[in-house]
């Protein structure tokens, strides 16, 4: 099966047209002709789609018919199809690592316009691979078992759905949520577009299911602080912040809250985005899961000063759930896969001062309005201006912190529909005139265009134009005492001034402020905008560049609830695929010490970040533990006597590749 030493090297070369993707720029037949004349090349062909079944069949057939023992395929990125062709090589009866791939699509035809230069480049790269592959040897992949438990980070709707999907399939899940309750942004919504069904009605049962599920360990008020290991075998450290309430003992009766020394709720309440009040001891919201109170250490007298009558402890009586001795705790768990669903942050409307948020009290954000129209909100669902009047006219400004080069370039995707939903709720609650200032209405989701149509028919006015500013200075009598919007109605071609009572800013979505830390923690990538980067925008939308780490929901980019749930399900399925197979195959690209060459100089030992290299005192040689080696090759480059080598990236292989790329103009 393997070409042993001394065996004649017989190489097969295949160049893929990829339809016109490659052949449109690179002269594939010319490259094939050129390679055919290179030493050791027995077969050289060009073909329309190498990754297709007939393309792969070609390789298999040639291996048998021409007794090939090395294969080179020039096509797309190895990150995309290396596995495909390795399988084909293996199916043809050859060790899959006697294969080398040449990237002439992403690195050549797609990025160059000069056909002649691109063809020459393809020849050089092909030549390099043909030279390189001569040194390839047969290798075996390593199999590592996959730990069946899964960590889900973030308890918004995506995390909840992913956890339940996995748990219902019998997998054990750790769900870690930073806030005292799961639920995320969705828990704050009144109704959901385009169906106008009540957010709480569809979310609450799922939240309770998480709280009650025997396969889910819910750690709220906790954060992941360290991730070690690799796919199938992650060791994760979770920080559990003290909530000063024993979760096992608390039954959520809230007697303690009533008993708190603070008689009145006086601190801004996070759930109502600062518009409501709570006490130092509180439950985040009525449907919170876990149904357990939490003590705010920044507000509680006992925590802050140790001087409090502790009436809460008294009220809890013999349940003894309140525990001021609680300290931060680090817990270690082992999991095989991680699903990151850490969500988004809302754009801070103060960053666009022209809109007067924070200056004019009746300029509110969309999420504030959401709380103001909810019956569980601070006003009991009555939409009022700050002075208690009912608004007669309300304007929505869309794309606040979206599609703007100075803040966020992207479209936040949900604001159009979200605003239309709120506009309908405003009309329902107050009958006020509603004007929506928009740039483009984006309503591509299922049922969304119909919802737009309904909004138009309901008499909501849509003005196409980005609002330039919101002021409180009047030019005409009807503007007195109102907020005045100045904008060009671009469809009418007129600059307009429009006085209204209330303005709602449809703030966009942003990556979480600690997204960069999370990215490092889980070894993911972020796009330039800061959203977590999927492995492939189409083919691997919930995978990341780190195997066994998946993403779902808005941490990957703005999306609505149905899309978040769909991704969460997909991420759960990806994790399950790994768990149910039970093992993963690792690239055999580990480094190894050639013992008889090693002088025992120990130079390599401090180089390894994984402590995979140890010094064998008895033999006075370095020794690499292949199970710990991740294959970076840094020690190979560092070994001063050339005694460490690396499978798949041997010195001779790389050197011949360098020689190859340079030997052709």
């Amino acid at each position: 099966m393997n070409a042993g030493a001394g065996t004649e090297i017989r190489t097969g070369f295949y160049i893929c047209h990829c339809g016109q993707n490659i052949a449109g720029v690179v002269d594939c037949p010319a490259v094939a002709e050129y390679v055919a004349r290179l030493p050791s090349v027995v077969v050289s062909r060009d073909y329309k789609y190498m990754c297709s079944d007939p393309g792969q069949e070609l390789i298999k057939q040639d291996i048998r018919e021409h007794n090939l023992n090395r294969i080179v395929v020039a096509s797309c990125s190895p990150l995309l199809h290396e596995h495909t062709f390795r399988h084909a090589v293996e199916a043809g009866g050859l060790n899959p690592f006697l294969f080398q791939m040449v990237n002439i699509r992403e690195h050549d035809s797609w990025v160059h316009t000069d056909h002649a230069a691109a063809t020459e480049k393809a020849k050089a790269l092909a030549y390099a691979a043909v030279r390189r592959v001569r040194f390839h040897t047969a290798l075996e992949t390593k199999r590592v078992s996959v730990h069946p438990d899964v960590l889900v980070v973030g308890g918004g709707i995506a995390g909840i759905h992913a956890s339940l999907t996995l748990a219902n399939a019998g997998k054990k899940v750790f769900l870690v949520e930073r806030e005292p309750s799961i639920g995320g942004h969705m828990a704050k919504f009144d109704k959901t577009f385009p169906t106008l069904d009540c957010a709480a009605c569809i979310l609450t049962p799922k939240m309770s299911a998480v709280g009650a599920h025997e396969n889910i360990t819910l750690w709220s008020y906790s954060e992941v602080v360290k991730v070690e290991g690799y796919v199938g075998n992650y060791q994760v450290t979770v920080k559990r912040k003290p909530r000063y309430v024993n979760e096992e003992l608390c039954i959520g009766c809230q007697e303690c809250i009533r008993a708190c020394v603070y008689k009145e709720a006086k601190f801004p309440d996070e759930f109502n985005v600062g518009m409501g009040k709570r006490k130092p001891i509180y439950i985040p919201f009525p449907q919170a899961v876990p149904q357990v109170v939490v003590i705010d250490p920044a507000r509680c007298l006992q925590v802050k000063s140790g001087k409090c009558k502790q009436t809460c402890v008294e009220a809890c009586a013999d349940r003894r759930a309140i525990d001021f001795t609680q300290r931060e705790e680090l817990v270690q768990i082992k999991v095989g896969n991680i699903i990151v669903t850490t969500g988004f942050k809302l754009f801070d409307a103060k960053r666009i001062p022209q809109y007067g948020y924070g200056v004019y009290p009746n300029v509110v954000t969309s999420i504030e309005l959401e709380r103001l129209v909810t019956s569980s909100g601070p006003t009991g669902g009555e939409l009022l201006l700050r002075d208690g009047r009912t608004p007669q006219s309300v304007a929505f400004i869309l794309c606040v912190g979206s599609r703007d080069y100075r803040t966020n370039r992207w479209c936040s995707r949900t604001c159009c529909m979200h605003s239309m939903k709120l506009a309908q709720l405003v009309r329902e609650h107050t009958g006020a005139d509603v004007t929506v200032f928009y740039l483009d209405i984006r309503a591509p989701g299922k049922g969304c265009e119909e919802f737009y149509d309904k909004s138009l028919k309901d008499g909501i006015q849509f003005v196409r134009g980005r609002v330039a500013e919101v002021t409180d200075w009047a030019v005409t009598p009807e503007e007195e005492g109102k907020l005045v919007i100045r904008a060009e109605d671009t469809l009418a071609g007129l600059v307009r001034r429009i006085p209204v009572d209330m303005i709602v800013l449809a703030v966009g979505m942003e990556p979480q402020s600690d997204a960069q830390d999370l990215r490092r923690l889980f070894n993911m990538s972020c796009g330039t905008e800061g959203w977590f980067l999927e492995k492939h925008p189409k083919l691997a939308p919930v995978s990341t560049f780190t195997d066994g780490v998946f993403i779902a929901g808005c941490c990957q980019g703005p999306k609505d609830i149905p899309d978040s749930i769909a991704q969460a399900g997909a991420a759960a399925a990806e994790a399950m695929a790994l768990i149910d197979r039970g093992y993963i195959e690792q690239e055999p690209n580990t480094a190894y010490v050639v013992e008889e060459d090693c002088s025992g100089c120990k130079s390599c030992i401090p180089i390894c970040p994984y402590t995979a290299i140890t010094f064998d005192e008895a033999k006075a040689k370095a020794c690499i533990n292949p199970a710990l080696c991740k294959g970076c090759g840094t020690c190979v480059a560092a070994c001063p006597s050339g005694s460490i080598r690396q499978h798949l990236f041997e010195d001779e292989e790389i050197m011949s590749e360098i020689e190859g790329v340079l030997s052709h103009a």
Partner: protein
Amino acid sequence: MPKPRIAIYWCASCGGCEEAFVDMAEGIVGVLEAVDIAFWPVALDFKKSDVRALPDKGLFAAFVNGAVRTSEQEEMARLLRRKSRHLIAYGACACSGGIPGLANLFTREQLLRFVYEDAPTVSNAAKTRPQTACMDDGRELELPELRNVVRTLDQVVEVDYYVPGCPPTPKMTQEAIGALLSGKLPARGAVLAPDMALCSECPRRSSKPTDLAFKAFRRPHEALIDPQKCLLAQGVVCMGPATRAGCDAACPAGNMPCTGCMGPTSRVRDQGAKMLSSLCASISARDDAAIGSVLDGIPDPVGTFYRYGLPKSLIRRKADLPAQEAAVP
């Protein structure tokens, strides 16, 4: 059966390698019993014509030391190549250029001007320079031409075996001759020294820590060197890890760092690059400025990493020097 004939010749070298033969002491007696010395200009009065007179391959072996930098040395290298069955590059200069190889950092003109004019100890008001030809008493006299580029022996003629070191130790020399005579030879082109780095035989080896991280580099004269402890662990650049064994770690044993005269192992193409790679990877500094100040401790990277091997390194010579320079008039 006549004894095999050998030749010993020097090119650009300090004479230390010739000394190494003598340093075999009584060992040389055994050698002389086994071979006839047919050519050894330093010690015995043979002429070039005597070598010419030999049939091709008439010499069993020729040991050539020194780098090749004059026309005469090239000529002699070719002659000895033709006349000998085994041509041995003997010593660091012949193997990899050695100290004379550092002349590849300068042009011939720069060298001549310094040596004959600018050096502080020179008094040469007439600015006389060596000439390749001149007339004296009506007779034309010739001097070999100094080349622009210093070369290793194998950059001029094919070499069969290498005996590295500055100079090779008597033990290595004896072993090499022994191997030649016994016919128990490795593949052609091999280095007749252990193919392992020097640390394997260094007396200080056990004192090297496994968590070395360089905070600063010191040159030997800048520090009081602990005679027991690994030199690298003391921040002194020791080329041992990137240098062949075989010298019994004479320098570290004598409280000086290895400077790399034995050249790299067979697996390394460029000794300096490898040492640089290993050394720099283990610097503890983490940002540009801090790394820079650690590196300042190695003020002459070329001289440090390529003390004996510049002509044999991947770049061979200072690349921006003019390729050709008019021959000395």
